[in-house]
């Protein structure tokens, strides 16, 4: 069944505002493109800040109130900027950089804050389509003065080093003295979710430097790494009908501030426009100077252009990524929320960073990178923006040395990627955690969760298959495939049964550690070996020069390739043809069968409610494990095997990970169980967007967002790739009239439409 057609010629751009700054509140009309937070709920502020983070893959600035509150956690996160605290065994951690959009406004000495006086009107609107965060606020001070404020902010997708903040202020019922202070300051304490993050210390000015220090700038150095973050800012405050007001600039180590004091007239509007440039030691030798130089080319007078270019950049990305759901506004909004944050999470121009588990929206997870990228997020980029996918895979290529070293240190060959990695690719997984029940829990993922190497190989192959990017395959992808295959061939051991066994691992189900012959790990390893052999054959046939070079450099002998073939053929899978089931790991079927639903609770994870030890001795699983395997290697399994394994493992899954519901939705949809698919889809959609769990307080869940997109596209849409190109086998939930999404495949753009697929099917004789 086909449901695709080649993409139309580039459509006319919609009309954009020609005003210097779009009129406040002019957000995309369709509610399915907006998140709106009406009023102010202090208890939810951390979540709102995460959800409303403006991000462009280089920098993310949390959606904090400019003036702050009793529960604000303002911060900016810059990709690739790590520090290290001065503690033994301290791991690299991404620093929390200053939020450069802080403002304080005082009217006749009374500071405008939501916890003082009365907010007559307050709302924040996140325009997902255009990547704009709006704030509309009308406030009455204790003295009775009413001020209207509208604020717009963006992290430019067109120029990733630029942030824009535009504020319009209007005294509604008074004339009087207003003071506005805008500042950028080194954080006094760690960002939320502390264990504290590495500190940032002011970079002292060069005593010999007598140069002009306009525009104002601030440079901070991360402890333990020396990485430098620098901001420069150009600001302008002017009334609608008059000349600008000059600021007083205050600088001291760790802080730069601009202060405007003026007498405002009743009914007049005053506009503050700030353009902030951000540079780091990763992209400039002298970041502060580079940031200042960046502003030589742009400033507040260019605000309209900055907005237009930013909006246009978002339009381009949405043209290639928007998933349209006809018939379910809630699902529509959740998918756009997911796609928005995925688009804003990655920088296609930076091959030395990847995406952390909470994107650039929060400090939890310390900026560390997991297999979440390759399995959960990369498909989105592969099919909507291949350059981003390529950059993310190149990160894995650039961190191959660290992966080789990890394997070597553990006595194996090839490449074993770190379970948690940072900029260097070294293993950064903590070794233990003190849980709130007082138990010191050892963390073994860094030692045993080896399936990440196969995940990287899987992503490489999916990218190659989808793009035909020869340059990538030759320069990077083949080497990743070969080295990860080499790892698997060294990792296991031959048993007396003549099978190849991989022991002492953790599969995706992390409730069970130190298991043998994880079906997921073994089959993905088998697949990895097969693809490496396929790649070797391809290179040998089509690019023999490159193959010889790799052979020589990696020391690959023909016997080794034959050994890989033997290992793959003999891999122990745990499959029982009588039942059609894969045993999740050796001995799984002997465990106690506990129904997670008895312990299912919105009030805690299953392993805590059941107890860690009992969970370990039970069949309760943390997340999609064999079910994930069914999806990833779908065509290797006959329909009855997929059905049997899903029906067996799905009821035993406690979904203790946010990575789980979306995969269950996808597989359920493919199997035609629409009620179950929809239940899991909604569960996945609510992980960040529900308002009663606080899940998003530490940042939005990147893998869940990527999984949600996959559930829609590969699950409900039934997207498959054949020799003839992409096709749909849709299984839409009740109420979904149609599903439409763009896909890129081998250099072509396709518009997939389940409605057309249905029409095509109806038209077939």
């Amino acid at each position, binding site marked *: 069944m086909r449901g695709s057609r080649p993409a139309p010629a580039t459509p006319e751009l919609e009309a954009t505002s020609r005003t210097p700054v779009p009129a406040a509140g002019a957000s995309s009309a369709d509610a399915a493109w907006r998140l709106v937070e009406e009023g102010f709920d202090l208890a939810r502020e951390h979540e709102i800040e995460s959800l409303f983070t403006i991000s462009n893959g280089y920098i993310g600035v949390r959606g904090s109130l400019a003036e702050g509150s009793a529960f604000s956690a303002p911060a900016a996160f810059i990709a690739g900027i790590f520090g290290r605290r001065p503690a033994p065994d301290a791991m690299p951690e991404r620093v929390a950089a200053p939020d450069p959009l802080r403002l304080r406004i005082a009217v006749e000495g009374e500071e405008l804050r939501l916890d003082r006086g009365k907010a007559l009107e307050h709302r924040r609107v996140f325009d997902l389509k255009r990547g704009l965060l709006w704030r509309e606020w009308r406030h009455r001070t204790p003295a009775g003065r009413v001020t209207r404020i509208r604020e717009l902010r963006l992290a430019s997708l067109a120029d990733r080093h630029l942030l824009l903040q535009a504020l319009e202020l209007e005294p509604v019922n008074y004339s009087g003295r207003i003071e506005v202070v805008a500042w950028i300051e080194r954080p006094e304490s760690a960002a939320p979710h502390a264990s504290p993050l590495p500190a940032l210390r002011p970079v002292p000015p060069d005593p010999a430097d007598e140069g002009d220090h306009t525009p104002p700038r601030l440079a901070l150095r991360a402890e333990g790494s020396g990485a430098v973050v620098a901001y420069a800012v150009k600001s302008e405050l002017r009334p609608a009908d008059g000349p600008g007001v000059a600021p007083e600039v205050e600088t001291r180590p760790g802080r730069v501030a601009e202060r405007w004091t003026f007498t405002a007239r009743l009914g007049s509007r005053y506009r503050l426009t700030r353009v902030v440039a951000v540079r780091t030691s990763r992209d400039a030798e002298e970041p502060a100077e580079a940031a200042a130089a960046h502003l030589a080319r742009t400033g507040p007078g260019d605000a309209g252009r900055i907005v237009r270019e930013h909006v246009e950049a978002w339009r381009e990305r949405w043209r290639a990524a928007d998933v349209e759901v006809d018939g379910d506004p809630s699902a529509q909004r959740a998918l756009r929320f997911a796609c928005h944050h995925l688009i804003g999470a990655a920088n296609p121009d930076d091959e030395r960073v990847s995406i952390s*588990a909470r994107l650039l929206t929060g400090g939890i997870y310390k900026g560390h990178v997991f297999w979440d990228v390759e399995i959960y997020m990369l498909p989105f980029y592969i099919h909507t923006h291949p350059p981003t996918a390529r950059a993310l895979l190149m990160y894995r290529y650039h961190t191959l040395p660290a992966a080789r070293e990890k394997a070597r240190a553990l006595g194996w060959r090839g490449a074993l990627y770190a379970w948690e990695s940072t900029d260097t690719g070294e293993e950064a997984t903590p070794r233990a955690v003190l849980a709130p029940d007082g138990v010191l*829990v050892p963390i073994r993922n860094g030692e045993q969760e080896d399936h990440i190497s196969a995940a990287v190989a899987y992503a490489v192959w999916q990218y190659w298959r989808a793009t035909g990017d020869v340059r990538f395959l030759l320069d990077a992808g083949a080497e990743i495939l070969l080295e990860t295959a080499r790892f698997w061939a060294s990792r296991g051991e031959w048993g007396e049964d003549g099978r190849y066994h991989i022991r002492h691992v953790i599969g995706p189900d992390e409730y069970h550690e130190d298991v043998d012959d994880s079906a997921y790990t073994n089959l993905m390893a088998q697949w990895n070996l097969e693809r490496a052999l396929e790649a070797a054959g391809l290179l040998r046939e089509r690019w023999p020069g490159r193959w010889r070079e790799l052979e020589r450099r990696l020391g690959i002998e023909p016997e080794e390739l034959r050994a890989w073939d033997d290992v793959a053929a003999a891999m122990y899978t745990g499959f029982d043809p009588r039942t059609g089931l894969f045993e999740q790991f050796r001995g799984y079927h002997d465990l106690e069968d506990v129904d997670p639903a008895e312990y299912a609770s919105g009030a805690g994870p299953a392993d805590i409610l059941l107890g860690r030890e009992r969970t370990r001795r039970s069949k309760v699983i943390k997340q999609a494990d064999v079910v994930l395997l069914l999806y990833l290697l779908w065509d290797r399994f006959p329909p009855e095997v997929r059905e049997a394994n899903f029906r067996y493992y799905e009821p035993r899954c406690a979904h203790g990970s946010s990575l789980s519901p979306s995969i269950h939705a996808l597989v359920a949809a493919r199997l035609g169980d629409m009620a179950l698919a929809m239940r899991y889809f909604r569960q996945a959609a609510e992980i960040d967007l529900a308002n009663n769990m606080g899940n998003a307080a530490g940042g939005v*869940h990147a893998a869940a967002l990527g999984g949600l997109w996959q559930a829609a596209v590969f699950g409900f849409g039934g997207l498959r790739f054949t020799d003839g190109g992409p096709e749909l086998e849709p299984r839409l939930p009740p109420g979904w009239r149609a599903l439409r999404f763009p896909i890129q495949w081998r250099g072509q753009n396709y518009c997939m439409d389940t409605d057309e697929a249905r029409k095509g099917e109806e038209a077939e004789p």
Partner: protein
Amino acid sequence: MKIESVVVPLDGTLPALAAVPVANALADTVGATLHLLHVCERPRRQAALLRSLGLSPEEMEGFVLDQRTGRPAQGILRYAGELRHPTVVICTHTGMEKPRGAIGSVAEEVILGAHCPVVLVQPERGLEPWALRRILLPHDGTPATTAAMDPAGDLAELTGAEVLVVYVAAPGEPAPTEPGSFAAPRYLDQPQHEWPAWASEFISRMSALGHPTSEVQLTLLMAAGDPGEQIVRVSREHESDLVVLAWHGSWEPRRAATMKRVIREAHCPVLLVRAARPRRGE
């Protein structure tokens, strides 16, 4: 929580006197006046009343002795209502025939009718002196409960007591629906990151929404199981001197089960603080 008056109802029985050391220490801590109250059918002369209560004039230094007529619970509530910022400290029961863990009818009626905090004391603790070093603060993660937690913070500031916040994950219990709630993490993708983050977020929410002070030492502990049972267990294991419970005003069997169990089984006094009913979520 402002306390200017501490009211101790005495019915003339020895068990009832168990509330006096707790009330006295509490009044000393907050600088409140201690009121000993007797509600009876017919008023008595003060000397006779003192004797009947087992007290001497010398022991009355710093106390106020009052009596009211009528039904005991109503008399207690009316009296408390006449005072500024009262707190009632009352024994759970005084009838000798009642087993340990009972809640007497007068105590129950006072709990239901009071608009001020009520401290419940088990008569089994006798006249043992009481000092506040450790406060146990069960918390269900809802903003409504946080808003009622000021008393614990205030007392901790005054006494330097440690505050142990305990969150109980109860199997089968649904997540709270009140917007802004913060229950145990539903998803623990990587515990090495999620647990420290959850604990920090929980405490910082409490501090920001409830008692925003950096002077109080707060520790968070999670338990799993029946909430009442776990609160009692933790209070015993950590030698708490006071359990502070937010109470949303319902005495119906299912709704008040945790509170009743804690009152009955805790080894230390229990302070009940009225909390607003949780807002309903979407």
